[in-house]
């Protein structure tokens, strides 16, 4: 007991207190490249007694990200605390030219920063997004960006955004990371597209309606809705009036299951993707005959056809970008015995890979009322 007390007294100086109100709490960070130097902007939250807390953006430029951090420290009376960082935005240019791995790696090594921090790519640069003054009802732009990304992940219009997922995909052979792509519209940051990566380098974007297909191919889809435009001829037997060339259908409560199989590896890798999709119809742009068991297959086949077409377009786009967010490479690596696939090998194979898509749409309900 005596020694315990001695130990307590001796060791009590070993931990550095970080009292909440003395911290300048960083909620979002933006990184950009300016020549050879990194430019960092942080949203710092300092607490005020009068109900309106202050969030302030401080900026610095240095050769390393931790150097930026030191320069930021010089600009505030608070201790900068990175424990509440929610979002890290990388400028498009930085992500495209230098890659973001060195910057994410240091985050992962920092015990204060959780693995569930969201990463994003910002257009035209990170600074502009972080410095935006429009953040709806949230107290600072960091929280706004956090909620924005979180909401879109929840509604499944985004696939992945966390540091953990990024690092995982980065190290995984045959799968490339994807991140949300933020852009500024009317001075307000919004999620507009999804950023595609090869390794840690940004290569291009896909629209959110395209990212739906990445999602159903890469994993399963559990909620949300999707707008599909089918050609008039495909659904002709169901139509009453004859007006437009295209018919829009909105399906809801989508549930998908996918299966990717490597059929053959020679001469080129040949995959078959089977996607089973269940949904109900929510909206149609035109009047139709009552949809019954006997004619629902017309609609199903039309949707299948359209989806297949769109998926094939998407796959070609991905191939053109030389990026594989769906993870065909991973599947290839798993399916072929005694193979140590490298990224280099895979990109070569991926370019020629043949991917068959088999969509199986079933419409469960044509609305919840009947």
């Amino acid at each position, binding site marked *: 007991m005596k020694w315990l007390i001695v130990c*307590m007294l001796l*060791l*009590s100086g070993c*931990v550095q*207190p*970080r*009292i*909440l*109100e003395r*911290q300048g*709490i960083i*909620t979002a960070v933006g990184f950009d490249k300016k020549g050879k130097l990194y430019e960092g902007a942080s949203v710092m*939250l300092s*607490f*005020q*007694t009068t*109900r309106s*807390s202050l969030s302030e953006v401080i900026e610095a430029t240095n050769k390393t990200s931790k150097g930026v951090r030191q320069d930021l420290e010089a600009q505030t009376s608070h201790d900068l*605390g990175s*424990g*509440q960082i*929610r979002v890290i935005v990388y400028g498009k240019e930085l992500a495209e030219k230098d890659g973001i791995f060195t910057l994410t790696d240091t985050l992962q090594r920092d015990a*204060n920063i*959780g693995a569930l921090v969201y990463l994003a790519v910002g257009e035209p640069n990170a600074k502009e997004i972080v410095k935006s003054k429009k953040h709806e009802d949230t*107290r600072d732009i960091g*929280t706004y960006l*956090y909620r924005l990304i979180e909401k879109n992940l929840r509604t499944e219009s985004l696939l992945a955004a966390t540091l953990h997922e990024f690092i995982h995909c980065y190290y995984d052979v045959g799968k490339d990371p994807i991140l949300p792509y933020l852009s500024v519209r009317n001075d307000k940051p919004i999620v507009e597209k999804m950023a595609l990566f090869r390794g840690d380098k940004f290569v291009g974007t896909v629209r959110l309606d395209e990212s739906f297909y990445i999602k159903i191919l890469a994993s399963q889809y559990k909620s949300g809705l999707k707008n599909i435009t089918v050609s008039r001829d495909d659904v002709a037997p169901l139509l009453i009036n004859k007006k437009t060339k295209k018919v829009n259908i909105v399906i809801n409560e989508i549930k998908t299951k996918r299966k990717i199989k490597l059929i053959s590896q020679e001469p080129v890798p040949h995959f078959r993707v089977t996607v089973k999709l269940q949904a109900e119809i929510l909206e149609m742009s035109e009047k139709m005959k009552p949809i019954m068991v006997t004619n629902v297959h017309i609609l199903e086949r039309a949707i299948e056809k359209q989806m297949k077409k769109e998926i094939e377009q998407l796959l070609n786009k991905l191939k053109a970008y030389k990026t594989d967010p769906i993870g065909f490479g991973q599947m290839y690596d798993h399916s072929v015995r005694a193979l140590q696939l490298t990224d280099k090998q895979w990109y070569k194979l991926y370019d020629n890979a043949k991917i068959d898509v088999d969509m199986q749409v079933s419409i469960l309900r044509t609305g919840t009322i009947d």
Partner: protein
Amino acid sequence: MWFSKKNRVDEVAEQLAHSPDLMCRRIQCKGKTVDILFLRNLINHDQLQQNVLAFIHDQEDVSLKQLARCLPIGAVHVCETEKEMASYIRDGWACIYIEGETHGLAVNIAEKVERSLEKAETESLVLGPKMSFTESIDTNIHILRQNVTDTKLVTEKMTIGMRNPLEVRVVYIEDIADEENIQTVKQRLSELHIDEVTDSSVLAQLLEDHAYTIFPQYLLTELPDRLAYSLMKGRIGIFVDRSPTVIICPTTFFSFFESTEDIYLRWTMSIVLRAIRMFGIFSSIFLSPLYVAVITYHYEVIPSALLLTIGESRSRVPFPPVIEALLLEFMIELLREAGARLPTKVGQTMSIVGGIVLGQAAVDAGFTSNVLIIIVALSALGSFTAPSYEMGATIRILRFPIILLAALWGLVGILIGVSMLLIHLLKLTSLGRPYLSPVYPFRFADMKYALIRLPQKFYSERPKTNRPQNARRFSWREAMKRKDLDE
């Protein structure tokens, strides 16, 4: 022997330190002088007049033998010495000496002062019997006998205290309670060499296994039904004269969190209530240390929705979180202590002053954050949920060292505190029996007694923790049978 020397009345008076209350009524009867000695404030005067004085007056033959045989009084005793006589007089008996006799006669006409039976104050219940024990051991035994009519009920009488002797009763059910436990209790009681024992709570401290711990090792209760329940489950009770609380032993840690209400309520309800109580007590110990640790060291773990609220309320406070927490905890303890000492009417004013004025003013003045006020109020409430007052007090004290540990090392400090507490609890014993049973040693079957409640049919065995000689309460098979009316 004792009449020969001096005047015996003087002798007795000397034994009683010439108390001004000592009365000596000398009557002449059938040519004999009869002295009746008593302490006037201890006796029942009606009884003295009707059953003693009048009776002696009407007697044909006034002799010790005759009186001892015929006096219409429940208890009489023939005394040989003045000392013996004096001790009876002290107890409120009257002593009769007839001239020429060698012995004196003590008759019991004592009138004990006691309050009427009331509702239990410290252990208040919503459901179930409300009566509580009182200060007289005779009344208490009476109440117990009404509650437990088991023929095997033993109420063993012992006396402790050399200067101020006190009657102590060890009660147990002969064929249920563990033999070894009974022996331990009796041995510890007989080995007490002490001048006096004030109350049963003092006796409990004297009988403890471990003096250097903040945990109480015996349950003190003023509820007869709780004692009866404990006895039937194989525990031992110790009654102490002049004390309204009964010691129940051996006791486990968990029995301090059991209320008799848990048995009276249906099992579904009592599971929830017990869980709430456990949670309340847990949060009472750990909530304010957690606040200190998080604010001082781990601001990362605050959810983003709470960050602003906590940060803003903290930003006015000039002290580090430890001082803030200790200050507020101290204030609450002060209020509680003041409330306990004050008469009820003033106590209400106190609680208003304390609760509203002080709390609000402390926040306005920037002494504490309002988040902490909520936390401290919650933990104060939590400690009140302990059905035992002793355990409640322990919990009040327990959080102060943990707050200090949290201030030293944050969450790691709290964990160190928890570990040390656990180690300590594991080592504790009550009457030589493990304190943390049924968790350690692990007794699965006893969980239904200590932690949760189940439907009555599952309670066919008495808890193993008490090592009952006869574990079976009723036949499980019988209980499982359906008993329909139309069978």
